[in-house]
């Protein structure tokens, strides 16, 4: 019976890249259901479109670089990138927006660097930032949750809207701001947060609908922690980083922005903390490095949200911290057994 390894060890654990990616996708399901509940089934269409295009692009590129197709297609990293991007995009995003984003992610952000494991930037966030900068209008039009609950959107009209732009059903206004966006523009007009919260777009603590999505994402995140797919260092460091800086500024200048709780459960915080910042390929690998990385993402997210030009800073924060990863990894090496002095 031939041995399966060239040299020891001849035993191996059961942990596999594909398994990790599948568990990550499973952890996303509750949040996807919440999104469909609040924003209609359009996200499902965007997701399938993204996944199909992602796999196609990956296959073509692997063929071009004559790499074996099967191991790389089934490792699920392209599918995860596609799903994460689809969730981050506005639900009724036109089809070409999703396609350009996912193509840019798979080709430029991943395969140009050598495919799985070599890309320094998180592909989903690179695509999100590209789209946010190039198509600001489409990226910031979100269906207001309020009037959606009166006359919900069915699958066919969503399909109609995504693929050729008009809306058959009776919803008149399509464009509406996200809670974060609304908060930022109102603050710009020197409203006080307490008053802003009465607006329909806001729910109990954060944005109506958004708070539930973030909570379900957090539940998915805890499942990942329990399954040891991700380690606790990055999410905990990010959430603590975000809440401390928002608590500090909230105490000093409450009129500047919403409460720390608002920031924790709005926009892409939970998605960023549990699913995006913890991408092992682009995040820091040392234990201390992960804490520095997480805290950095948290701080930058808050700074960009409150003082920056864009409503949600998670994507930018992750990319900026991805840039710093090689330096962080170099300066946070653990103390080796018997190291006399570090």
């Amino acid at each position, binding site marked *: 019976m031939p041995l399966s390894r060239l040299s020891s060890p001849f035993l191996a654990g059961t942990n596999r890249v594909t398994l990790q990616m599948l568990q990550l996708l499973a952890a996303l399901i509750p949040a996807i259901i919440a999104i469909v509940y609040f924003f209609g089934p359009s996200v499902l269409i965007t997701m399938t479109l993204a996944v199909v295009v992602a796999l196609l692009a990956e296959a073509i590129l692997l063929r071009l670089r004559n790499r074996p197709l099967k191991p790389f297609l089934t490792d699920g990293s392209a599918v995860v990138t596609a799903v994460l991007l689809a969730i981050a995009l506005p639900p009724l995003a036109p089809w070409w927006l999703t396609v350009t984003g996912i193509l840019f992610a798979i080709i430029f952000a991943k395969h140009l660097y050598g*495919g799985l494991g070599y890309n320094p930037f998180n592909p989903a966030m690179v695509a999100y930032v590209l789209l946010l900068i190039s198509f600001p209008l489409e990226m910031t039009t979100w269906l207001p949750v309020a009037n959606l609950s009166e006359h919900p959107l069915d699958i066919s009209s969503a399909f109609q809207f995504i693929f050729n732009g008009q809306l058959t059903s009776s919803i008149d206004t399509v464009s509406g701001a996200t809670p974060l966006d609304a908060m930022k523009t109102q603050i710009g007009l020197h409203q006080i947060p307490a008053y802003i919260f009465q607006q329909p777009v806001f729910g109990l603590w954060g944005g109506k609908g958004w708070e539930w999505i973030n909570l379900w994402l957090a539940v998915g995140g805890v499942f990942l922690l329990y399954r040891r797919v991700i380690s606790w260092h990055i999410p905990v460091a990010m959430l603590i980083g975000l809440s401390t800086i928002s608590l500090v500024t909230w105490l000093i200048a409450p009129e500047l922005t919403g409460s720390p709780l608002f920031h924790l459960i709005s926009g892409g915080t939970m998605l960023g903390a549990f699913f995006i910042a913890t991408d092992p390929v682009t995040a820091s690998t040392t234990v201390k490095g992960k804490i520095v990385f997480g805290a950095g993402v948290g701080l930058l997210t808050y700074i960009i949200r409150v003082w920056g030009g864009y409503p949600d800073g998670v994507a930018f924060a992750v990319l900026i911290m991805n840039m710093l990863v090689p330096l962080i990894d170099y300066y946070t090496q653990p103390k080796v057994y018997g190291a006399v002095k570090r």
Partner: protein
Amino acid sequence: MTDYALILISTILVNNIVLVKFLGLCPFMGVSRKLETAIGMGLATTFVLTLSSISSYLINEYLLAPLGIEFLRTISFIFVIAVVVQFTELVVHKTSPILYQVLGIFLPLITTNCAVLGVALLNVQQGHGFLESALYGFGAAIGFSMVLIIFAAMRERIAVADVPVAFQGAAIGLITAGLMSMAFMGFAGLVHV
């Protein structure tokens, strides 16, 4: 006091000399192959940039303006920068010959580095006072060095990545720099200067 801090933040993060204003790209690509040389180049450029932005302000304020010969501004700035760079080159050659050898052509090249001349001219254009132009020069240099060091660390890692042959070396470097500047656009609007 706060507007000095604003100048610093704006030159380092918001309109970073390399990633937003796209100045000083040739040393940025040329010297970022290894981390140690990047740090060396960063220090040399900081020294040169701060010194030259101060001296260019002095010359503009006390030599060109009173005599009304502002049209000589560019030539005299280039002149001063060349002298400062030559001075730095001597210092570096003496203090660490290895850094001198490894920086090689890029040390004298700082003279033609558009960031250095750019900062000097921008100082005059925005009518900065003495301290402001010093801070502006220093901030731009820190911005340049910071991004250069981050980029060098990344390139050391990418150098070993399984990049397609057509893209190895400067090509993947430029793409990475492009993605970095996209990320830096997150800071846009951070400070209204």
